[in-house]
């Protein structure tokens, strides 16, 4: 693993009177899988969306691959968004397009490849997420787990250096959730990407994460390895890891 690929420096963000992020500072290293763990409404999805400029901080710096992207306009964000892809919570597949058109969207948008070349690339990405023969289906014909996989195939279609996962296992049954966890690990191993996984699923966090960051009420209370997280005495983190129960009852 190299130096910092993504860096947050004293990032503040509010919506109206509500302060969502209150001085977030931490680094995500090149090639690692960083899990941002936190309860509902802790601001973790908002944090993730800052990395590709879907939100702008009120104050602070967001540095991606050495560039402070705060203040970038949509045009300047194009190279950042090609470099770092995002997997949205519900998949966010385009309803009106087939699986093939969804996965090939980025290639059609940003390259001059022929339809045959795009089709071949789409098949290759779909096989990476262990899907076959679904190219001509519409998103409405897919199960929840398949939608997530297609969305993941769409995210990796442009061979990004980083992938952001927003609640990748939410709403899936435990078995499907585990296959998604395996895929996240697989992506890192095979594509050598930097991953940021936002989740409240503790099991998933420990399975996929190299390091864990714990976000609580807009503040980063802990950043460390999975083992350090398990041993941490940070009260809010312990409380969260114990599922809200007192120590010793877990």
């Amino acid at each position, binding site marked *: 693993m190299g130096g910092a690929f993504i860096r947050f420096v004293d990032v503040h963000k509010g919506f109206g009177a509500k302060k969502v992020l209150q001085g977030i500072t931490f680094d995500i290293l090149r090639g690692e899988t960083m899990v941002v763990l936190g309860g509902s409404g802790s601001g973790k999805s908002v944090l993730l*969306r800052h990395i*590709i400029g*879907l939100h702008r901080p009120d104050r602070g710096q967001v540095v991606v691959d050495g560039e402070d992207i705060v203040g970038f306009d*949509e045009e300047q*964000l*194009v*190279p950042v*968004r*090609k470099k770092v*892809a*995002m997997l*949205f*919570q*519900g998949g*966010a*597949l*385009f*309803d009106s397009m087939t699986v093939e058109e969804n996965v090939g*969207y*980025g290639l059609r*948008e*940003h390259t001059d490849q022929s339809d045959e070349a795009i089709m071949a690339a789409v098949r290759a990405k779909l096989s990476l997420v262990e899907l076959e023969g679904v190219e001509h289906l519409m998103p409405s014909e897919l199960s929840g787990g398949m939608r997530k996989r297609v969305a993941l195939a*769409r995210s990796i279609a*442009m061979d990004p250096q980083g992938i952001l996962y927003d609640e990748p296992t939410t709403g899936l049954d435990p078995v499907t959730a585990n296959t998604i966890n395996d895929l996240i690990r697989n992506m890192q191993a095979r594509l050598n990407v930097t991953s940021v996984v936002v989740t409240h699923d503790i099991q998933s966090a420990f399975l996929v994460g190299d390091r864990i960051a714990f976000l609580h009420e807009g503040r980063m209370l802990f950043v460390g390895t999975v083992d350090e997280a398990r041993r941490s005495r940070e009260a809010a983190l312990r409380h969260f890891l114990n599922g809200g129960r007192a120590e010793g009852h877990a």
Partner: protein
Amino acid sequence: MRDVAALALQELGGFSLLVAETAREVVRRRPEWRVLMGQLYHHGVLSVAIATVTALFTGMVLALQTSYSLAAYGAKFFVGDVVALSLVRELGPVLTSLMVGGRVGAGITAEVGTMKVTEQVDAIRAMAASPVRKLVVPKVLAILLMLPILVVLADFVGIMGGLIIATTSLNQPAVFYMQHVIKALSPQDIMSGLGKTVVFALLIAFIACYKGLNATGGADGVGRATTETVVAASLTVLISDFFLTKLFLAF
């Protein structure tokens, strides 16, 4: 009160930015023909029925009402003139825009709004593409092209509706009615009707896209945005019609 003013200013600002961004995208890049053709069909061709049925019955009612009113002055022969002028200058553009605007505007806001609340709009941005170019530009261009065509069609069908009443109820020969129609209409009448339509088309398209792109909060939010679009589009068509009529009468 200050909050309301601030909100209105914010909405106006957001709306203006959308218009400016759309104009920039139209100038900067060629439209995607395949998408545009789909939109032309969806918003234009599929609106033909609603536009023509509205116009047909409006033309027939106009002929009946004017013959009834003009009879008191012994001027029943001018039914063709009144139907043609009312339709081409006013009722064709306004009624078509209201009906088609309701249909198309609601559809656009529901579609774009659903994409917004299911993060599909963010997904377009996340893939380094522009939601304005992908979603707004084809819809604005399609309505801008199709609404004037629908209005011309509605004008024609409405005049034919008047013809049906003139020949069946008022015992006027068809040629006589049509001569009055042709004599009454000047190129300025047609241009003023179409000029208004272009403004109405832009208002409907931008309001519908703006409301969709700013929808929040799930199905409830999309429903609210859709209602707001129909109300806002209808009111702005009617209000701007007054000012456009004054403007066109000045020339």
